[in-house]
């Protein structure tokens, strides 16, 4: 069996990205939506590391560290807002927080 190459990693990363995007659009629970957002970011991370590993130098992997840090901050803020929302409204379901019309 041949070892996985750049294209294999890119296909996995694209699939992860689509799974994450579908989760953000389709799932009704905001906690799961936040997790799906993380999957999307990690799909990009995987692509960065793959490109970096197959010939583009180490820059991409350094970028990934920045992304991980930023994603942690983003999730901290997201969870803080969700906790405040849950305390006030008693729900974190998308369908229950639709006072503002789209």
């Amino acid at each position: 069996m041949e070892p996985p190459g750049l294209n294999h990693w890119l296909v996995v990363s694209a699939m992860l990205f689509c799974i994450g995007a579908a989760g953000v659009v389709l799932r009704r629970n905001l906690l799961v939506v936040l997790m799906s957002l993380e999957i999307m970011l990690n799909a990009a991370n995987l692509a960065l590391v793959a490109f970096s590993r197959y010939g583009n130098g180490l820059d991409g992997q350094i970028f990934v560290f920045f992304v991980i840090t930023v994603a942690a901050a983003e999730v901290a803020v997201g969870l803080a807002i969700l906790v405040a929302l849950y305390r006030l409204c008693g729900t974190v379901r998308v369908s229950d927080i639709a006072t503002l019309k789209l």
Partner: protein
Amino acid sequence: MIHPSVLRLELAVVGLMLAVLLGDAFARKASRRYWGAAVAAALLALAGYAAAGAGILPNASARVFTAEGGFLVDAFALWVKVFALVATAVCVLLTSRTPGEDAPGFAEQVVLQLGVGLGMMVLGSARDLISFYVSLELMAIGLYLLVAWRKEDPLSLEAGVKYLVYGAMASAILLYGMALVYGAAGSLEFGIIRQAAATRSDSIVLLAGFALLLAGLGFKVSAVPFHWWTPDAYEGAPVPSMAALSLLSKPAGFIILARLLFDVFWPLHAMWQGPVAWAGAATLLWGGLGGLSQTNLKRLLAYSGISHSGFMLLALASPTRSGVAAMLYYLLAYLLSAGLVFTAMCGAAGPGARYDLRDLSGLGRKSPWLAGALLLGLFGLGGIPPLAGFFGKLLVIRCVVSESGWGFAAAAVGGAVGSLYYYLVVVKAALSPEENGAPPIAPVGRSLRALTAALAFGLLLVGAWPASVWGALRNAAEALCQ
């Protein structure tokens, strides 16, 4: 190697953030009266220093790099810093009115606004994908919190959640685009990406990455078809946060869009010109028509913001230096007029107000000063001569006629007329006699008076005498398009 002296403006803002935090921990309550004004004065002093070159640039066409080429200071970046400092000062002054300097969390709110402003300052200088991404997220994460700030108000939290989910999704799309561009170009640096765009313009990975970058930034500037979050986020957010959204976040989107289109992806300009023009026309019409049926001032201003985004996209769709200069002039006019409107809104109601149009009734009688500011701001947004908004629209339409054709110019005029109609609806509401149930107005404080006077003066000056800023804008545009 990082040269701190090149980062002196950013470091000064970081120092200001630390000073506010420490001051909040140690200062007595009585000494907080003028905090907002003091922070704003410091920001404006920095803006003046930046406008004078900040001792970094020897002349207008110089380029100074630091952080391994990831951070660039040129005339364009300096102009962005001036803009960001002034806009942050406006937001801080608005915060010192609502919720007020003695409200809990005032210092934190100011620190977050300074962080958002700092993000825009770094973004103007971004020269590789890391500084681009980190500065954009510095702005976005602060804004998620600012939008959701009133945590006792379900609307504010709902707006915060929506902005967070859509914003984070846009960031993820943008990041995936960056990963693809990195893979195709082999480097994170804008200079090398530009070379790759010139030599490998048929690379499907590069083009896909570029398209994803544009989609992510389309969200930040609320361009059709990525605009739907805007009215919700604006309606739920407190007014100072709404000001930060439209005076900092949106201009930042346009700044980095200009950097990408006119510098990094300039070799592909034949490819992006058409889509940007179409997105601009659609955004303009959507904003102009969508606002017509609104009865809430905040939602109406969101649609107004969408329509202005359309104008600026159309300016960017003309691939010339005049297009960039017109966009920069339009941004300045937008800052001054929208700043006036937000100031009047902050003065006209307390922290929890919903700003339905009928709540404005009797404003002209209760506070002529605020009504005048609202009127002038709305006329500036609508483009009534001799205010700056008029020249902004004129410059953009001139570029559109020569580069994109008469059809797009007709769309621009149509959108402008639609939005002018709904501005006049607001003016009518503000000047109508008072209805029962309209909220009383607290006296207009000194800092708010100074802010309105300064913004109104700027709006008239830049409008009646465009040459006062045109040279600087032209230099910035030329530094960008090299």
